[in-house]
């Protein structure tokens, strides 16, 4: 097996300063928000790599960088051996871009209500002048809808059916990699099961690779081969699925697991985690988790822990072992 995506020290900084004039009048400094900071990981071909973390941890930003919707500030994204930042051959970049598609959380917002389903699904291919004869009909059947649905409008479908339409559109250009940003978060559990099963089937049938973004640990446990945990824009732990769930090494990962509601934990009384995610514009010094970490020592507030490898796990914590 080889890596189809290689991400190295990926960093993205957003300028979230107030307008220049306000800054001058109110004597405010420039405000820079580091949404993604020195993140490195690799995704094996035909595998599912999941990114988890709480709101604002940088999951969507990484997804958007990988599909090319947001440029990185620093670092490198290499897809199928092509470095998207330095490659000079435009046709190579275009070929790689066509191999990556994205599915978003909200199946309502991401479909144009005035277009027929056929036009929606064919659009990515039609835009490149490709042949779309029978394409939408074939894809609709592949995602468990019917060819007849091609003539309908999005409002005629339920949430789960719309997410299938989004998946059909993502498949239109025959991609190898799909970045899924919370693909089932807006769906009911019974509908979620249908969509997740479809994604598993497509992975097997078409040999797809997924970058799977989610905050739902049970969904990630079901889908992922390898999982990266993000906190305030940094990767704090990465491990194969069972490794991570059986023996989480980073105190933040442990906190996430403890806090997640469990369907088999009737009347469980847990001491809920303390504090909140800090302000991303002025993150804590040293290890960004130290104000909330139950085992933090003095060193943690001064020195940022480097990513270390322990067995199959990579973890950024001074005390992890």
């Amino acid at each position, binding site marked *: 097996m080889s890596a189809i995506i290689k991400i190295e020290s990926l960093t993205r900084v957003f300028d979230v300063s107030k307008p220049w004039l306000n800054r001058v009048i109110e004597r405010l400094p420039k405000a820079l928000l580091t949404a993604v900071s020195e993140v490195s990981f690799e995704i094996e071909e035909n595998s599912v790599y999941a990114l988890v973390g709480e709101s604002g941890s940088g999951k969507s930003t990484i997804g958007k960088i990988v599909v090319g919707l947001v440029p990185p500030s620093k670092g490198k994204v290499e897809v199928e051996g092509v470095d998207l930042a330095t490659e000079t051959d435009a046709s190579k970049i275009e070929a790689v871009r066509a191999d990556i598609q994205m599915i978003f959380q909200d199946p309502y917002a991401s479909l144009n209500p005035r277009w027929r389903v056929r036009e929606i699904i064919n659009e990515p291919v039609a835009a490149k002048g490709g042949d779309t004869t029978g394409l939408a009909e074939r894809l609709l059947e592949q995602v468990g809808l019917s060819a007849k649905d091609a003539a309908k409008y999005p409002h005629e479908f339920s949430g789960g059916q719309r997410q299938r339409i989004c998946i059909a559109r993502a498949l239109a250009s025959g991609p190898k990699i799909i970045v899924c940003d919370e693909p089932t978060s807006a769906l009911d559990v019974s509908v979620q099961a249908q969509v997740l099963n479809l994604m598993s089937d497509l992975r097997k049938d078409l040999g797809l690779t997924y970058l799977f973004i989610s905050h739902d640990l049970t969904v990630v446990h079901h889908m992922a081969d390898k999982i990266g945990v993000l906190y305030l824009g940094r990767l704090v732990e990465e491990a194969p699925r069972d490794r991570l769930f059986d023996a989480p090494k980073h105190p933040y990962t442990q906190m996430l697991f403890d806090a997640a*509601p469990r369907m*088999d934990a009737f009347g469980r009384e847990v001491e809920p*985690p303390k504090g*909140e995610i800090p302000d991303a514009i002025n993150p804590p010094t040293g290890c960004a988790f130290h104000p909330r970490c139950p085992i933090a020592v003095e060193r943690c507030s001064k020195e940022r822990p480097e990513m270390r490898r322990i067995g199959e796990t990579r973890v950024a914590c001074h005390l992890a072992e």
Partner: protein
Amino acid sequence: MTEKTPVLSVRNLVVEIPTRHGILRPVDNVSYDIHAGEILGVVGESGAGKSMTGNAVVGLLDRPARITSGEILLSGQHIHTLKGEALRRLRGKMMGMIFQDPLTSLNPLLTVGDQLTETIQEHLKVGQTEARNRAIAALEEVGIPAARSRIDSYPHEFSGGMRQRVVIALALCAEPDLVIADEPTTALDVSVQAQIVALLKRLCREKGVAVMLVTHDMGVIAEAADRVAVMYAGRLAELGPVREVLTAAHHPYTAGLMASTPLASQGKERLRQIPGAMPRLGNLPDGCAFHPRCDYAQDRCRANPGPTLDTCDGRAACWFPLNTKQKDEVSA
């Protein structure tokens, strides 16, 4: 032992919406009680009628939806007949509401302190200073650090999780008997969600508040609720103690819902799925509304009248319930 009067008693509640294509029933013959210090969880797919039921109880149905029959009793007193000012006063005094989006419950132009003291003074006979002290106490109660110095902040100066705490403080400051929490943690991160759920449980236990907790998260239900009501297409599908309903569902829909969660299928490549989708309200099948998707459907299920809790075993609205004793004996 005499049964205590429940804080909330909903009897055969029907909510209807007149439309061009006929009358829809988003809430159809729903009955349940909630006792002091009890959390009733309400689950079901989007559109099942969970919010409609809660809104009907607090008298906040949006037109054209309206209650057309049934009764709602608060500590034994009929409240579905109240209107206008009388309803508004009773609602503020005896019922607190927490919605998914904290911003719908907060006025962005007033400080948190002003909103709390206003609510307290409207419903409790206390002076300005006492009201402010109570407001600070309410904020401390819900875990806002440095409440005394944060009380004069505006809602936008708080984070999402902190705002939801403020809403909870607002819902509780007039010391209500009943709290309706409609997806109170859905927009929040797991760590904040765990904090809010722990807070609701503690307040329920310590103050004896009756809580109706609407959520689609089975994990939250398992950890917080005492009993759970499962809704399907405007009707109650199942109602019972949370552990029994989640581990040994009587209604095939509940069983399907549980089986389709990733946790239940751990280690399996595919998740169990319920075929199809919940029918639209204007297009409900005859008999049991679940029959087109049900593995156990028989002729009787397709005939009217469909099963209700009352006409079945009181636990599940199903002619052929699962996990019942008799059945186990037969299969054994």
